[in-house]
């Protein structure tokens, strides 16, 4: 009897450990976390939108601005072509993520490593684009101190970037485990949970891309 109890208690015993609902604990927790994150980003996005068009000085996101005292001209600061590319990169990382998950489910060790690595790489590429964007904005005269747009833009996209960074670290950890000892199909739930987080970060970007970059 005791052995049976121990076996069923082992978290690695099966892909679907027995719980009240038959669902995985961590997966419920991550969905609750995602629900909570909705409020986090809703607050950040609300602030961005509330302060939209209220900055007293430029540079502005969508229109040029001439400094009345120095007559220096600042062009509209958002770089839509570059950001469209980085948006595409992040969307593709989501594709790589689902492929990584399904490879782990199938027990396909080779593909799982490739796709986990690609997801992390695409995420890192997105971060690279963001780093480029931030530095070029600073060169063009927009910092978190400049105006309301600068504060709310950098903090909103910065927090999103921080989430991507955490996701990349998470992915690299999974990749490391996969390389070291291989992720078994039983552990697919761990990849699934990471994937849910990753896709959520992606959908947040879908909202930010439209609300911040495209709507003038």
């Amino acid at each position, binding site marked *: *009897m005791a052995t*049976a109890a121990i076996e069923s208690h082992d978290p690695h015993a099966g892909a*679907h450990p*027995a719980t009240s*609902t*038959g*669902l995985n604990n961590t*997966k*419920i927790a991550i*969905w*609750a976390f*995602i*629900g*909570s994150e*909705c*409020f986090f*980003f*809703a607050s950040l*996005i*609300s602030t961005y*939108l*509330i302060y*939209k068009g209220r900055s007293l000085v430029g540079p502005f996101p969508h229109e040029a601005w001439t400094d009345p005292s120095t007559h220096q001209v600042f062009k509209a600061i958002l770089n*839509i*072509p570059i950001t*469209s590319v980085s*948006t*595409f990169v992040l*969307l*593709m990382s*989501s*594709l790589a*993520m*689902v*492929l990584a998950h*399904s490879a782990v*489910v199938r027990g396909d060790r080779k593909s799982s490593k490739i796709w986990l690595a690609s997801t992390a790489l695409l995420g890192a590429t997105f971060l690279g684009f963001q780093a480029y964007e931030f530095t070029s904005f600073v060169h063009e005269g927009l910092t978190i101190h400049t105006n309301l747009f600068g504060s709310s833009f950098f903090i909103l996209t910065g927090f999103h970037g921080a989430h991507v960074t955490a996701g990349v670290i998470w992915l690299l950890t999974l990749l490391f485990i996969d390389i070291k000892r291989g992720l078994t199909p039983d552990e697919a739930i761990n990849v699934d949970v990471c*994937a*849910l987080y990753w*896709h*959520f970060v*992606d*959908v947040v970007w*879908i*909202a930010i*891309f*439209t*609300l911040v970059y*495209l*709507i*003038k």
Partner: protein
Amino acid sequence: MAADHSHSSVSHDAHGDAAAHEHTHPDWGTYKWVALILTLITALEVWIYYLPSFTATRLFVPTLLALSAIKFAIVVMFYMHLKYDAKLFRALFIGPLLIASFIIVGLLFLFNHIKIQF
């Protein structure tokens, strides 16, 4: 051991649908199409951004919002497999999402970004 066995079989019946759903995840074919649609919608969004005749109209903002809502929904349904997963997850996500959206709209109204005309 008998009790143990009967119990797990009972639980299997009860959770059959949750477990079955996990195994009917969409495959490579679906993922490929989803990625293609997402890319096309993104391209469309950027394209209309560069159409001065369209950006000037009152349709511009609603169109963009609708397009991004579609992208949002597609990722959530297929990549986050909410379409195939247990209903509980749907509740955990959509409930907060709706309240959060109402709050954004409410705040924009309170800060006079949205106005009601009488």
